[in-house]
């Protein structure tokens, strides 16, 4: 077909979206019809279905990356606090987030939690909600609490648009996101199967596009990328297959992902942009939507440091499953500096990996890390050692 884009063209489009710190895609979406609204959300997870069902655009806000000069944001934070809140504040104070009509701050850590209060003070004309999620996974306990939290959000969004959000609208949106999740699962499966055809530096950008595009458009984009990537053979290298973990909030710079790949690693699974894969199974789209979203959260969520493991034996099971199902040969623990959840979780996960004889290495980064040589050296040494061990 003449209008079929190459993988490179798709990635170029995604790169442009990634580079655009003014969120012009969001502005254009809003401008294309009167009365449209957009709601920002921070990592790790919010039920985007509710925002979509209200006719609004959910927009993932992931800090400023390595291209944003943080000037005002630094005045709000001490040196020992991670980078994502300061660059997010910078985005807000410089007007880049004016296109958002509200912000959701999920329960992930104390820094993002407190940022919700800062947002209430600094941006008084915006809708701001701290979105709490249960750490009790019983339907009758945590489920009841969470369903109520969903109800509050649904009512708030209904008020914001001037009409209640109906069950039918919600079920339709659940269907839309089921399709998106299926496409993302297919993308991850494809990358794991042929990582040389779909390098993570590209997969990440394709996934990241979903932070600013409507889900229907993003689903089509993901499918298109898989087809395009598969149509042109690329050289297969003797790289080590690794899972990258710990990067679920503040994002590593794209250069870091590229450096790991250039150093001889195929990233075959990760916890980047986990909102796209948080619910691990389809959500029934024909029931009580809030109850179904609650059940999905309680029983089919991904595991991450911000989520309580009820039993000691649960620790590391999710990561180990990623390693086993993807045929990974090692784990790279890549956590942002000063990220309490990731850094406190890390020793436990490392212990589980050690017990299962999964090799690992670890480093820290910031979203604006510029020096890649040490990371390339470390990842390269790690990849070499995996190859040596596996040959032994």
């Amino acid at each position, binding site marked *: 077909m003449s209008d079929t884009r190459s993988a490179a063209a798709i990635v170029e489009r995604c790169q442009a979206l990634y580079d655009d710190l003014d969120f012009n895609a969001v502005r254009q979406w809003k401008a294309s019809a009167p009365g449209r609204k957009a709601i920002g959300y921070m990592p790790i997870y919010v039920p985007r279905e509710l925002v979509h069902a209200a006719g609004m655009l959910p927009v993932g806000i992931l800090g400023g990356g390595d291209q944003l000069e943080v*000037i*005002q944001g*630094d*005045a*709000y*934070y*001490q*040196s*020992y*606090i991670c*980078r994502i*809140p300061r660059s997010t504040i910078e985005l807000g104070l410089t007007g880049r987030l004016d296109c958002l009509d509200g912000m959701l701050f999920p*329960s992930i850590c*104390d*820094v993002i*939690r*407190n*940022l*919700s*209060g*800062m947002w*209430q*003070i600094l941006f008084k004309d915006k809708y701001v909600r701290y*979105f*709490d999620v*249960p*750490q*009790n996974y*019983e339907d009758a*306990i*945590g489920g*009841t*609490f969470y369903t*109520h*939290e969903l109800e509050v959000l649904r009512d708030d969004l209904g008020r914001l648009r001037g009409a209640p959000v109906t069950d039918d609208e919600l079920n339709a949106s659940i269907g839309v996101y089921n399709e998106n999740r299926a496409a993302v699962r297919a993308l991850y499966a494809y990358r794991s199967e042929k990582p040389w055809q779909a390098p993570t530096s590209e997969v990440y950008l394709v996934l990241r596009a979903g932070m600013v595009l409507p889900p229907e458009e993003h689903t089509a984009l993901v499918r298109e990328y898989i087809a395009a990537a598969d149509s042109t053979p690329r050289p297969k290298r003797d790289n080590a297959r690794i899972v990258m973990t710990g990067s679920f909030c503040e994002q590593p710079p794209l250069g870091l992902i590229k450096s790991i790949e250039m150093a001889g690693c195929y990233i075959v699974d990760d916890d980047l942009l986990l909102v796209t894969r948080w619910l691990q199974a389809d959500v029934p789209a024909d029931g009580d939507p809030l109850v179904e979203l609650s059940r999905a959260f309680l029983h089919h969520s991904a595991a991450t*440091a*911000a989520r*309580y*493991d*009820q039993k*000691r034996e649960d620790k590391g099971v999710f990561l180990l499953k990623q390693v086993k199902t993807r045929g990974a040969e090692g784990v790279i623990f890549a956590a942002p*500096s000063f*990220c*309490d959840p990731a*850094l*406190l*979780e890390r*020793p*436990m996960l*490392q212990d589980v990996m050690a017990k299962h004889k999964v090799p*690992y*290495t*670890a*480093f*820290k980064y*910031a979203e*604006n*890390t510029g*020096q890649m040589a040490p990371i390339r050296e*470390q990842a390269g040494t790690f990849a070499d050692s995996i190859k040596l061990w596996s040959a032994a």
Partner: protein
Amino acid sequence: MTATAPMPASLKKPQVVKEDAMWLQKELINRNYHELATAREAGRKVSATFVPGNLNELLMCFDFARSLPETNALQNGLRKKSGRLIMDAERDGQSEDVCTYVKADLGMMMGGEIGPTGEVLPRPDILLLSYTGCFTFMKWFELIRHKYGCETVMLHVPYQGDGKIAPNMRDYVVKQLKDTVIPTLERISGVKFDIDRLRQYMRESQKAEDDLVAVLQSAKNRPSPIDGYFGAVYYIGPIFTAFRGMPEATQYYRVLRQEIEQRVREGKGPVTPDGDMGEEKYRLVVEGPPNWTSFRDFWKMFYDEGAVVVSSTYAKVGGLYDFGFRHDADRPLESLAEYCLGCYTNLNLPSRIDMICRYIDEYQADGLLINSIKSCNSFSAGQLLILREVERRTGKPAAFIETDLVDPRYFSAANVKNRLESYFQMVNQKRAAAAAGSVPPTLAAAAAALPPEGAEFAPRGGPSAGSVPPTLAAAAAALPPEGAEFAPRGGPSARTR
């Protein structure tokens, strides 16, 4: 102090002056450590839980000996033992970036669980994870469980993101208490839950709470008879830890209140480690926990200058009693839920700012000092905005210093002292200007002022609060301290396995 609570002579050390109540507090804490150390031979099960959302009355219903890991860490900090424990934990794989309470506790457990008093503490039978106002709590007990196999029971306390306790939040906590926490505690302890026993403890708690509030609010007097930060950490010790609900705590607070009321009648200021404080020159409100490793030196920097802390947010970390909360025996579980939900660090930032402004007004304070703690994101993230907002709303100067809880590497005495002295000068200037009928912009106001668009800032990696040096808000006791090594921001750390 009356004869009802005589001090053990052995505890009285002439070189340090303390109120009788402070000595008694120390005795209570030490006694609890002894009870913990002998729990096994006494046939008692051992619980561990955190200070914010501490359900002491409930744990007592099951006859647990009660350990509080934060208290263990701070006691080790006060006794200059925490530095080594932290480094032991870091050698065992903990990041240099994370909470030093956690690392001090893990280091203590790794080192044979020798408690602050030198006695070996037993491994807890149950970790009651009161997940209240601090994300790190969850990881802390997961780490202990992972390493030592202790069973954990979660009590998830939702955050007051909207600045209020919604019925859904309270119901959620109550349900967890009924369906998860209490059955687990029954199973572990072998003791059946008796709600009337809980009620009795809560009635006892309420008496102590009334007296504690009277003590804390005595600081509204001039001079203040107490220090509401350095002194208050002694006063809150029993009620925030293993003693609330016990007759001993009730007695302690009754005696303490009498002692303080006597000081008011006599027009006396606080008792400091060097004796009665001299003239009260400055009245401050403090936000943030204290530094424990140099606690006395830190306090001395205040009282040497005639500065008294009239109120502090840290003294509310285990309950906002001064704003009216009391344990209510008529609705015990609901009341426990509200207690957990209402702890200071579970408040959103606007509520924290309201509270500080109210303190400045009601206690006639000269200004706000923020002691920003490297370890504690729950307290620290957002404090620079708190500073700015409090200054804007009250017109009172604010200052910002940085230390840590129990990591001695992050206490730079010279920097802290310099900043405090500058701050006191600023308060003087502001007073002089007010007396002269004009109020020029203070250094603190400049410090707090956030930059206009396009303003230049100190680069990252420089002193934190890194906004507007040479002001107080910036870089007060800038990290890193002398000799401490830090991974550079923006670059990967060297830790690898």
